């Protein structure tokens, strides 16, 4: 879970070096041993390819099945590729629910939560790491309690609280609670770890140039923390994008729904899922994030693995 960023970069450096030296450092073997090694390698690659199936196939099949007509989905022997490709399901996605609105809801909530968390966590992380003020440790402990509390533990009091404020079926609890509450704590922790490692000379230089604390934070520390901020941004966005318990507790009208909640609503009159429509909607939800992941893979892997999305 929380391997610090610098430790991780160190780990990556080790990989690169190991890969570079791996080939040449080995003693030259006899051709028999070489052939054997090649067979072992081929076997291991095949094994990895087979193991990839449960990881990749569901997503691929989701995409292809979303282009199948319902009759083809219900066939006894499943088809890998749509034989009679149609985009009808995609039309249904938008006809049955205000899907564009729901998509927008998820998008803007996740964006606000991400930006808000980055700002709030960077400030608090900086102050806890670099500024000495009375009670800092005690306050940090208060904040850390949030790491101990699963959202299910506080959902009843929070529901009551939100209800008391008349904010049920609004997006307020989905925006404000994550930015300031328990989900932000990990972000604060990561930012603090980063700022602890920031060389004091940089701040001194800023002070020489006549910058005050805020100036040092905004002009020097904040821009330097890009790698940690990227990690925070990625896991915060995904957490908000995937939030499920809170939306189903707080929201009740379809116009307000977020995506995870909306996806489960594509059912027929008997409560049975309309598979092709549901898969079309999940495709629309999943594919953009996957594409971003493929582009910024390194940041994703570091951001998520180091910061302990659990389970």
């Amino acid at each position, binding site marked *: *879970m929380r*391997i610090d960023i610098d430790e991780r970069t160190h780990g990556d450096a080790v990989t690169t070096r190991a890969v570079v030296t*791996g080939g040449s450092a080995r003693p030259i073997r006899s051709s028999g041993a070489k052939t054997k090694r090649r067979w072992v*390698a081929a076997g*291991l690659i095949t094994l*990895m390819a087979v*193991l990839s199936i449960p*990881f990749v196939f*569901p997503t691929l*099949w*989701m995409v292809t099945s979303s282009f199948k007509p319902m009759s083809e989905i219900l066939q*006894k*022997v*499943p088809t890998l590729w749509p034989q009679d490709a149609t985009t009808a399901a995609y039309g249904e996605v938008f006809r049955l629910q205000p899907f564009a609105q729901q998509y927008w809801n998820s998008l803007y909530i996740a964006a606000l939560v991400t930006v808000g968390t980055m700002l*709030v*966590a960077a*400030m*608090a992380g900086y*102050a806890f790491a670099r*500024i*000495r*003020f*009375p009670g*800092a440790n005690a*306050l940090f402990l*208060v*904040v850390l*309690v*949030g790491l*101990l509390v*699963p959202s*299910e*533990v*506080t*959902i*009843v*009091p929070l529901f009551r*609280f939100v209800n008391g404020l008349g904010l049920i079926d609004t997006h307020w609890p989905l925006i404000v609670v994550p930015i*300031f*509450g*328990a989900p*932000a704590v990990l972000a604060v922790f990561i930012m603090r770890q980063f700022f602890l490692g920031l060389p004091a000379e940089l701040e001194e230089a800023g002070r020489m140039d006549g910058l*005050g604390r805020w100036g040092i934070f905004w002009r020097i520390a904040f821009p330097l923390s890009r790698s940690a901020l990227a990690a925070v941004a990625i896991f915060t966005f995904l957490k908000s*994008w*995937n939030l*499920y318990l809170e939306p189903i*507790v707080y929201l009740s009208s379809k116009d307000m729904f977020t*995506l*995870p909640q909306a*996806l489960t609503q594509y059912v027929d009159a008997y409560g049975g*899922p309309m598979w092709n429509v549901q*898969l079309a909607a*999940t495709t629309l*939800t*999943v594919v953009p*994030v996957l594409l971003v992941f493929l582009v910024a*893979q390194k940041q*994703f*892997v570091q951001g998520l693995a180091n910061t302990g999305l659990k*389970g």
Partner: protein
Amino acid sequence: MTASALQAVDAAERRGPRPRRSAVARRDWIVGYTMVAPVVLGSLAFVIAPLIAVVWFSLHDWNVLANTFVFSGTDNYERMLADPGLHNSLLVSLWFSIGLVVLNVTLALFLAVLLNQKLPGTTTFRTFFFSPVVVSLVAWTIVWSFLLQADGGINGFLAVLGIEGPNWLRGDVTAMLAVIVVQVFKNVGLNMILFLAALQAVPEEISEAARIDGAGAWRRFRSITMPMISPTILLVMILTIVGSLEVFAQIAVLTGGGPGNSTTVLVYYLYQQAFRFNDFGYASAIAVLLFFIVLVLTLIQWQTRKRWVFHEN
């Protein structure tokens, strides 16, 4: 920096070195408090206060629909002791956690070892194994429930092989198995990366020396690699257990806690008590129990982490 702040610095400077330092320090305090204020106030409002409230609520008989809120002492806790539904959910959570940890950690370690072999294509396979992590949880679960239907993709594939697959989500054992497997494939990539980092930190020289001494691959792995990464294994296990207690969306979407209540884990039972049966008092008592379980596990984790850090040094 604002003009007035600059003036204050100027004024402080004119007053000589000593008072200047303390004035700057005090202004630093104010900046410090201002910077942490959002998170501290947020934690008080959205973590600490709800935590106190949930304990308080757990001492009450509180039905939302009937609008009753009566102090009932430890009634809810006594009810927990006698409630077979709760006992069932604790047992279900236990099975789920054990199954998840065993499968997840074994598979994660296996994948990490494979990826650590520096074979061609490793980067692509790493991407494959990691990709479900970024797939929306509910979407992933929906796709798997599609695959796991009685006439779904998995049974269709088995039928091609001449095997008649069970109705996975309708049998007690198979439903539990399905929930575990779906969750394992979703997030095993994270643990895999942690193991991979640990494996790459193992110095190659030791392994190489053992190889020259004639130790086989399995022997090297068991006697050198395993002990060296054991702290990571322990850490990953505890993290996975804590994470497994918070599994909600998967259960809600895949099985709805069923068939019967065979996959009703603790958090799902809590959710049902609160938002299906409107029994906020009892749900709060369950929340307190959940909190204590997570607390104990986290304390163990911190203990382990300390040892882990020590080991790293």
